[in-house]
């Protein structure tokens, strides 16, 4: 797929001398959902802020739909919608006014039908005449999303959209995101929560200390980096790993034998292990496998990098 956002050798040194981004290269494909995963201070917000125009890059270039974000900022920015990490809204403004404001700011004529549709989709239509400071935190976040969608962006940045959001809203949010994707919108979201990336993303980028460690197809990443566990339950729960199986990477968990193996390895060793088990006269009751989560993959990556 063609890239809709191209980031070339992007670096950012803040005024205090802190290097928040170090030679970042990244291509975001049109129509994908990309999750940027990274711990606090990794540089996720800095990266988004540069692309959206709130922070100046120190060096490097970014283009959105072929438009450079500095030299053709109008064309580039009119493609972009942003839901910021912090809830930043004018407290005394009405919901509908602030959403209309966003649309105007992005150079679009008023479109009441569209704004109504967006507000309904985000369950805000009933509260359209409420002032922002009368809303709950979750509702304010919905307002931020409505503002970002009001000008029909082709690329949507969601900076930690689920911080402080309950299960219900998270579900709604993912519905909206999937619907947008179906309409061809490219979505980039940042998160600390690996389950989130796992649940929604097509690709996952891992960023730490200002560097992108990897960007991979989610499924590929999980299989490539993934370690699998084989859980073997025996007729007679073992007290300890049987002597005869000590050469295998085994441990005991809840009375079952757990065998960890690398799915990428030439030989997983499963056949041999199972043969050894029956040789030892152990009768198996049940066998299951479990794939390691992105979380574990992530922890491994960050540890390897530091």
């Amino acid at each position: 797929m063609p890239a809709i956002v191209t980031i070339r050798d992007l670096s950012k040194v803040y005024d205090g001398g802190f290097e928040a981004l170090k030679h970042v290269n990244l291509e975001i494909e049109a129509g994908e959902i990309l999750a940027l995963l990274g711990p606090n201070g990794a540089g996720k917000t800095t990266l988004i802020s540069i692309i959206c125009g709130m922070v100046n890059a120190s060096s490097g270039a970014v283009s959105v739909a072929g438009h450079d974000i500095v030299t053709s900022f109008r064309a580039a920015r009119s493609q972009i919608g942003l839901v910021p990490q912090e809830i930043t809204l004018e407290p005394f403004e009405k919901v509908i006014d602030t959403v209309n404001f966003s649309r105007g700011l992005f150079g679009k004529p008023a479109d009441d039908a569209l704004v109504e549709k967006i507000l309904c989709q985000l369950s805000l239509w009933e509260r359209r005449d409420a002032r922002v400071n009368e809303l709950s935190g979750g509702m304010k976040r919905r307002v931020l999303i409505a503002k970002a969608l009001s000008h029909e962006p082709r690329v949507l940045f969601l900076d930690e959209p689920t911080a402080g959001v309950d299960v219900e809203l998270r579900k709604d949010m993912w519905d909206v995101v999937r619907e947008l994707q179906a309409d061809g919108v490219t979505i980039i979201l940042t998160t600390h929560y690996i389950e989130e990336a796992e649940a929604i993303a097509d690709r996952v980028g891992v960023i730490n200390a200002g560097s992108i460690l990897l960007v991979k197809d989610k499924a590929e990443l999980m299989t490539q980096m993934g370690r699998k566990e084989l859980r073997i339950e025996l007729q007679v729960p073992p007290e300890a790993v049987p002597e005869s199986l000590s050469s295998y990477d085994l441990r005991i968990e809840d009375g079952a034998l757990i065998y960890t193996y690398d799915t990428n390895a030439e030989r997983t060793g499963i056949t041999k292990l199972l043969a050894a088990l029956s040789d030892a006269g152990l009768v198996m009751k049940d066998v299951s496998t479990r794939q390691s989560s992105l979380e574990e993959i992530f922890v491994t990556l960050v540890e390897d990098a530091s």
Partner: protein
Amino acid sequence: MNFYAIKAIYISEMKRFFRTIAQSFISPVLSTSLYFVVFGTAIGSRINEVDGVSYGAFIVPGLIMLTVMTQATSNAAFGIYFPKFIGTIYEVLSAPISFLEIIIGYVGAAATKALFIGLVILGTSYFFVDLTILHPLTMIAFLLLTCLSFSLLGFIIGIWAGNFEQLQLIPLLVITPLVFLGGSFYSISMLPPIWQTITMFNPVVYLVSGFRWAFFGVSDVPITISLLAIAGFTLACLAIIGWIFKTGYKIKN
């Protein structure tokens, strides 16, 4: 030009103004009335005409200028400082708009508010004194330029300010004294010669004088110099704002 964006900013700023309409009007009207009572009636009854104009009428242009300058400055300063303070500036910075459009929106709204208040004060003064305006068009032009240039100044202050104290600092510590010392309530010719010379370094003198000329046809300095002064001040503010947006000073990291 992104006209929808200018309109959006302008309207949202004006809405903020109308949310606090009572307070926006009552305080300038009240303070102006107090000036008329104190200066115009109490003191004015003991002062003969100044430059052939009754003292009560003489102070009207200065009073309007005082309020318009402080209101334009603080309105514009607050207008841009507030989004910076609460963080909503992110949206303006991320929108497909140039600095010129941002300024037209914010400064335009602040200037409009100041103009409204200036006209309200002018209206109020008719309750206290007899007034005929000799050059109404020049008067309006001066009023507009003053609203505009001081809104630009306020915009710069709003961007520069790091807290609410700094926001109040310049209107309070610079503009008010300059207006009081700038011949708002007296003619420069009433001062001793040495003070007349010093006063000429006060830029507000040129504005008040020019504005008063539009009312009464009398002035401390020639009207063309007044016009040049305000035009120069406007251009200087524009240049500073241009630099701010080019460098991202205090708004972009």
